């Protein structure tokens, strides 16, 4: 085996959101815990204890509320400030040991272990121990010659936690064969439910069968993405490490309302708030938007009358000016607004994003005036200093009745100086 053969590790935090909540609530370590989606809608994270009680991902909270209480399950609203901070700590801890790291999601990172001295299993256990010690997060680690195999190894580390201590090295051919033969295609990275159903109809049920199909046939029947997956399963790296997050091609802010919105005035407030948030993201990646979409909709569930509509808005020039965009969004909203519905959601989608300085209009195309640039710069500076909603357009309310429900939220232990963990000296 060549020493330069690419090697990847996938580091995955076990029940990440729940582990974050438990870090500051030691009494919950043996207690089943679940975390709910925005608006306390449904279960999005659960500990193994909660899983053992039959609680499923996606279970609507209002339906299982009483059952949770009866079974002694503790539920939390999602506290993204906390999870974001701990995720960044985990990532920086991994980076203190591994030279190249890709943050794949809030609770998963790929590390490039190519060229790192053997034994790699010990190295992975060192990462695991340091993340545990520095951040309190339990992690599982899978090692493989491709990212897809590293992901499969990590899956195995979770499945066979007792035997493996949460670290699985899947570089040996016989280990790959052993595992892939026991792995349904649906568990393979990049194979969704729909594809796995089609594969099954074609007689392919395990990852091992998938790895042994002809890549060219797969490409013809399923496309290039699954072909890449097949090649990766055979140990041929096709998906490289992405260290920097690519700039987004579109920016979306949308959220379910905590309470249904029935008046145009309240909807205006909501749309203005989402525009505030969207333009912050836009300016952060130094882009301008040339087209955006405003959408409002009622809940698809329940008996009430249903309505959903959206409108495309074209500002006079590519812009990141929240005032101009909010005005345009208000005009768009007038067009699609209908009285008499109980709206559950609004959405702002900024599209046709252009990087500042990377596009050239013709001589007669107006561009954003310098004074808007200045105003936005000052706005962002103030909000960095005093909080992200300190200064905003007048359309956006200070306290909204439709705002997200987060009734069972833990404190922002690590991101707010007024909510720090309290240690008793008594």
């Amino acid at each position, binding site marked *: 085996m060549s020493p330069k053969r690419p090697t990847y590790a996938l580091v995955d935090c076990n029940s990440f959101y729940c582990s974050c909540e438990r870090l500051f609530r030691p009494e919950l370590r043996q207690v089943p815990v679940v975390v709910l989606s925005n608006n306390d809608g449904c279960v999005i994270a659960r500990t193994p204890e909660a899983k053992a009680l039959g609680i499923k991902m996606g279970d609507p909270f209002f339906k299982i509320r009483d059952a949770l209480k009866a079974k002694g399950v503790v539920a939390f609203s999602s506290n993204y400030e906390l999870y974001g901070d701990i995720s960044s700590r985990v990532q920086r801890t991994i980076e203190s040991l591994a030279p190249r790291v890709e943050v794949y999601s809030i609770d998963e990172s790929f590390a490039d272990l190519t060229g790192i001295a053997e034994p790699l299993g010990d190295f992975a256990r060192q990462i695991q121990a340091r993340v545990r010690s520095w*951040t309190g997060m339990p992690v599982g680690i899978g090692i493989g010659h491709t990212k897809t195999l590293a992901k499969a190894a990590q899956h195995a580390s979770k499945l066979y936690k007792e035997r493996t201590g949460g670290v699985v090295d899947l570089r040996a051919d016989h280990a790959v064969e052993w595992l892939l033969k026991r792995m349904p295609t649906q568990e393979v990275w990049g194979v969704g439910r729909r594809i796995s159903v089609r594969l099954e109809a074609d007689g392919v049920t395990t990852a091992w069968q998938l790895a042994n199909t002809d890549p060219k046939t797969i490409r013809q029947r399923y496309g290039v993405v699954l072909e890449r997956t097949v090649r990766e399963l055979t140990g041929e790296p096709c998906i490289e490490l992405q260290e920097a997050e690519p700039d987004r091609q579109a920016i979306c802010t949308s959220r379910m309302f905590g309470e249904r919105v029935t008046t145009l005035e309240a909807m205006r407030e909501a749309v203005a708030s989402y525009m505030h948030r969207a333009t912050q993201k836009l300016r952060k990646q130094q882009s301008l938007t040339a087209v955006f979409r405003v959408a409002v909709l009622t809940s698809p569930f329940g008996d009430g009358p249903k309505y959903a509509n959206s409108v495309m808005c074209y500002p006079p020039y590519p812009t990141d000016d929240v005032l101009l965009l909010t005005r345009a969004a208000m005009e768009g909203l007038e067009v699609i607004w209908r009285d008499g519905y109980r709206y559950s959601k609004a959405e702002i989608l900024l599209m046709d994003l252009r990087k500042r*300085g990377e596009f*050239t209009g013709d001589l007669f195309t107006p561009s954003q005036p*310098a004074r808007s640039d200045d105003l936005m710069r000052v706005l962002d500076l103030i909000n960095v200093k005093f909080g992200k909603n300190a200064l905003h357009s007048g359309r956006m309310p200070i306290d909204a009745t439709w705002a997200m429900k987060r009734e069972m939220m833990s404190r922002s232990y690590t991101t707010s100086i007024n909510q720090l963990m309290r240690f008793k000296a008594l």
Partner: protein
Amino acid sequence: MNLISLRQITESELPTLLQVLSGRASGGFPSPAADHYEAPISLDDLVDLRAPHVWLGETEGDSMSPAGILNGTKLVIDRARTPQVGNVVVAYIDNQPVVKRLDRQLNGGWMLSSDNPKYPPIQGLEEIEVFGVVTWSLTLHVP
């Protein structure tokens, strides 16, 4: 000359470009301090606040007051250090978060003591779960 592209400067780009130009063109006497520029001093750097293993907490109570840790004192907690006898630590005792000094009993077992003699030490613990070692404390002295 290698011409890469030629285009009209947009109005929004003008101020930054002008700033660059004016900065380069300044012809006055160079600042004598320019060579001695240092980044502003930072408490964050001093206590290593941005390290992934450093956490903040707050004190409730006065059992550690002789150590300068008063009610409301902010604590800088390092989870990368191995706790040593004599360290001020934050720990979970019966699931309660506490701040105490890590000590040895005469029989060799661990105990957590308070610097304030009014509070008896916590002894007879089978194990102590240390959350982290307190490296700095910060107290407000104007009410």
